[in-house]
């Protein structure tokens, strides 16, 4: 059951968006998210909608797949909408008991909901078309300037990619330990929240011990293969910009200008 969890929900397909350099995608997503929170009017949202729809169409990822990502945040969206609806001061439209619905409240609620939906859809275009490894590579290269202020960018990227590699292994291990404990009468399914958390302790202790042992082994294996940090390293799959990446940058900039111009209308 635990093995079904996948992190980094990559959807393999052969599309322009898939082939783009991860740095372009990171940059584009960042611009898109910022623009969403600057836009205030209908025309702005029309621009954002066209941009997003275009990206989704280009990515060849079925729309159904994208919508799946919205499910887990349904409740969050509902709560945000309700808070906005009832707690925004302004012209009162309807009021009953202590609750008041204002004109501004309705506006804010609709705006916020659209923003959140667009935010999730937009970012999932990136996560669905980029493998976790490409993402870490992209992050490493884009954040390289931070090296100058002594941020260990390479080490952080290496840690992220190793963490991604070990997630399935640790999940499998958790499953194994869980079964071993259940065979000896441990109970992970019944009881209230507090009791269930308490019951997790015999699961977590061996899991931690084995994770540390693995880390130790892995460090030794890396050293044995001459790993000595980022300096002097070459890349098997270096990131290089090609023509389509420059075009993509241009498209993103155009979008940014458009959304700034039309944002207020």
């Amino acid at each position: 059951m635990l093995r079904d969890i996948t992190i980094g929900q990559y959807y393999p397909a052969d599309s322009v968006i898939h082939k783009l350099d991860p740095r372009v995608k990171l940059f584009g997503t960042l611009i898109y998210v910022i623009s969403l929170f600057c836009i205030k009017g209908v025309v702005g949202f029309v621009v954002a909608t066209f941009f997003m729809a275009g990206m989704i169409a280009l990515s060849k990822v079925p729309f159904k797949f994208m919508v799946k990502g919205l499910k887990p945040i349904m409740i969050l969206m509902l709560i945000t909408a309700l808070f906005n609806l009832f707690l925004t001061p302004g012209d009162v439209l309807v009021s009953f008991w202590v609750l008041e619905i204002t004109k501004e409240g309705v506006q804010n609620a609709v705006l916020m909901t659209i923003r959140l939906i667009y935010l999730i859809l937009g970012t999932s275009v990136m996560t669905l078309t980029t493998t976790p490894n490409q993402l870490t590579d992209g992050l490493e290269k884009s954040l390289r300037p931070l090296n100058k202020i002594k941020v260990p960018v390479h080490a952080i990227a290496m840690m992220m990619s190793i963490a991604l590699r070990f997630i399935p292994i640790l999940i499998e291990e958790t499953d194994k330990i869980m079964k071993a404990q259940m065979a000896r009468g441990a109970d992970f399914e019944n009881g209230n929240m507090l009791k269930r958390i308490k019951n997790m302790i015999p699961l977590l202790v061996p899991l931690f011990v084995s994770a540390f042992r693995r880390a130790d082994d892995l460090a030794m294996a890396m050293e044995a293969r001459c790993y000595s940090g980022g300096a002097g390293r070459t890349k098997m799959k270096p990131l290089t910009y090609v023509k389509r990446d420059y075009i993509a940058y241009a498209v993103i900039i155009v979008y940014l200008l458009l959304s700034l111009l039309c944002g207020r209308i």
Partner: protein
Amino acid sequence: MNIIKARQLVHEYIRRDEEGNVESIQTALNHVDIDVKEGQFIAILGHNGSGKSTFAKHINALLSPTEGSLWVDGKDVADEENILAVRQTAGMVFQNPDNQIIASVVEEDVGFGPENIGVPTETIWTRVADSLRSVGMLKYRNHSPNKLSGGQKQRVAIAGVMAMEPKCIVLDEPTAMLDPNGRKEVLRAVRELNQKKGITIILITHYMEEVVDADYVYVMDKGEVVMKGTPREIFSQVGKLKEHHLDVPQVTLLADILRQSGINVPLGVLTREELVEAIMRIAG
């Protein structure tokens, strides 16, 4: 030339208490002399705690000697400056296949070693393809290591070492966590590397069957080399091996029992075919 030369090698694990006083000293290697010629297939046998893994880690400069010296391809491992060169000359494959694969795609993992030593990108690609081919894993190059069997993972690990073009590969109980099929796969790959590419192999194990094909065998117990010789010489001393908590292959054991009960089979029978032949000869 000897690619590996150990002289009076001593390693002590020193345990210290919180104040830094020595609590206990455990001698894992006790004046070990081992010589390995280039292109040989060497096996080091030993029971748990015999010091065989400690020795392996010295060859890769993961541990440094307390006393004595060890030269790998003429380079002293105790010298800090030689560490990277030593690790490039002598690659190492560990016991647990999961804990030595770094990347989440097979080919990227094989490329990890060459990346570390600064090989140019195009050369990395040819090296990765060559080394995956040499262990028969080329068609899995785009797979996730999590979906491979134990034997396949271990072959990927061997390819990862191969891609650094070492002269010598040390395998520290590479088959201990594998099923019999995986074990055969890995050993076949190792033997091929030795015969086709002339890579020196140092196989550390406690499975007797794996040792039969080696050129030379060292038996270790309690940090000392207690026996050395060709597999045939070693396996003809069934009693002595037993003293060191080691079993001989079943065929050898059977031959030994037959000898003791007065049937004239030769000493140190290694394979089933040899035994059959010997018995046929006696039977006429």
